[in-house]
């Protein structure tokens, strides 16, 4: 009953972080401390931060790849700490679409095989709807010809579009993009962000970048420094 109640309470939040503390080791200088951060369902968030500030670590924590933290991380209402590693992997496969900076694809598979690979690790779900897939391809301007090409033969821009298609495939509730535009030139960059946000309208998007000029495309912008700052203020109070 309690669990159900909690779930209902947290439902509107795609992401909810409370009193998160993480450090690599006791000797390490680096630590990440986020007292409180929520992302509402369907929100498009721009998360900026300097390099080395812990953006990737935060994403790893959210995705359930990095462990051994204290505090609470709830993704789509699920408390990540209660999951075993393999459950986290399955959770990630089912609910989170991830786009990297570059090299998102297995170079030796065709673009289409790369997209379909996402299905491989999902829990047994109904056969992929070819219509939904066709719509995604269509909106991302991925021609059948292009889809048959090997990933390594594509340009970086094309590769990133295929990566978006894969992240969107299966309609995950949360999409995490880790500096996906840094390998693109400024024109393709704009185009790419429009495509991503258009296609992912029903999902929550957390877009990480150090490039503030992109922030205007998003509902909300958050600085990692602010998120951490918040902690000292509240602690001092």
């Amino acid at each position, binding site marked *: 009953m309690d669990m159900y109640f909690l779930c209902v309470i947290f439902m509107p939040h795609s992401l909810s972080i409370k009193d998160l503390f993480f450090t690599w080791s006791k000797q390490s200088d680096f630590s990440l401390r986020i007292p409180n951060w929520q992302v509402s369902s369907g929100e498009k968030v721009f998360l900026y931060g300097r390099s080395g500030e812990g953006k990737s670590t935060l994403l790893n924590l959210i995705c359930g*790849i990095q462990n051994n933290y204290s505090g609470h991380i709830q993704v789509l209402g699920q408390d990540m700490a209660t999951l075993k590693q393999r459950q986290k992997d399955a959770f990630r496969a089912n609910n989170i679409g*991830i786009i990297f900076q570059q090299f998102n694809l*297995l170079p030796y598979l065709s673009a289409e095989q790369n997209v379909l690979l996402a299905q491989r*690790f999902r829990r047994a779900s109904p056969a992929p709807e070819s219509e939904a897939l066709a719509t995604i391809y269509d909106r991302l301007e991925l021609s059948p010809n292009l889809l048959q090409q090997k990933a390594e033969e594509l340009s970086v821009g094309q590769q990133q579009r295929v990566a978006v298609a894969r992240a969107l495939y299966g309609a995950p509730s949360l999409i995490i993009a880790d500096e996906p535009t840094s390998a693109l030139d400024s024109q393709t960059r704009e185009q790419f962000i429009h495509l991503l946000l258009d296609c992912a309208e029903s999902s929550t998007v957390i877009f990480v970048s150090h490039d503030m000029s992109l922030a205007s495309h998003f509902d909300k912008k958050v600085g990692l420094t602010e998120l951490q700052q918040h902690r000292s203020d509240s602690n001092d109070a």
Partner: protein
Amino acid sequence: MMLNVVLASLWSRRIMATLTCTSIAISMLVLIGVEHIRAEVKSNFERTVSGVDLIVGSRTSGLNLLLFSVFKIGNPSNNIQWESYQNIVDSNQVAWSVPLTMGDSHQGFSVIGTTGGYFEYFKFGDQQKITFAQGGAFTRLYEVVLGAAVAKQLGYGINQSLVMSHGTGKVSFTHHDDHPFKVVGILASTGTPADQSLYIPIQSIDVLHKKKHIHDELLSEVPLGLTFQPELSAFLLGSKSKIGVLRLQRDINQFKLEPLSAILPVIALRELWKIVGAVEISLRAISWLILTTALICMTTMLLASMKERERELAVLRALGAKAHIIILLIGAEAFMLTLIGSFVGYVLVTVGLLLGEPLLEQHFALYISPYVNFRAVCHFFLISAGAAVLLSFIPAFLAYKKSLLMGLKQ
């Protein structure tokens, strides 16, 4: 789908993978080849002679006697006088005897002078008698019986006329061409050195060497009278009782008229195999070492490929691949490389033996079946595949740890 990924990934590194496969194939070739030849030689070895209680020759080592009398390798150190032979054979312990003379050849195959008793008493394998594929034993002075391999390789048939050469080389300058022999029988294949010889009546060898011309005649019941008193290279004996064999051997070894040696073929074979066995063990050790090297090479290749596969693994992790998948991917790769390599090695051995068999047969009288018994060597496959998978845990574990440590960072 995952198999697809493994295959596509391997294909993208095909040069490295091919080289690794080749090194495994070659080491497998050595391993299987050595093992197969060893097993074949050993079984051939044990099959060469049976049913003979004693082999007697002029005083020499038991090994030498066995080698020249049965394997047609080397030469007798001295001949046995006819009187000595008569003397021993007259003993009431002896059930039968077959005299042998050697020293002539035909097209590189040794010519053995003997009596019809040879086909009766000389046995091979599991007490199997020599049988005739065509014709029968010689009954006249200038008749010859061919071993199966001789007939096959020289393409001779019944009634063919041949000329013997003096000496055992393939090229001889002395031909006994005034005494052509007629083929009257061809032996069925035995898979022993017996296939590699021609058999003529012992009297005719003597005639050849004395350079006397004697008209062809029927061999008499008591063929070796005063006219024919050849010197023997060796003779085979059968004892009346099993217990009598050792006594007979001692008597022959202490023979007064001339120094003789008598050996029990079973024991001599075993002694000879012991000598070969030492070589066998070192060959085996070497082939295992080669295989180990190949497997370590493969591990090195896997380790080297980990650097370029880091991104690949990060992508898979991001897609929700459980960490074990990474270990599985790398293990599967090692398994496949080893299995393909092993199979290629197996095929190479078979092809090599198919091509090399006639040569081995012709030059070394080695009868090696080109068909490797799959079940006899499949433990090599399993051991090497198992070892490969175990070894692949090294790179796989490192990759796994790294993928956890690195997270999604690229």
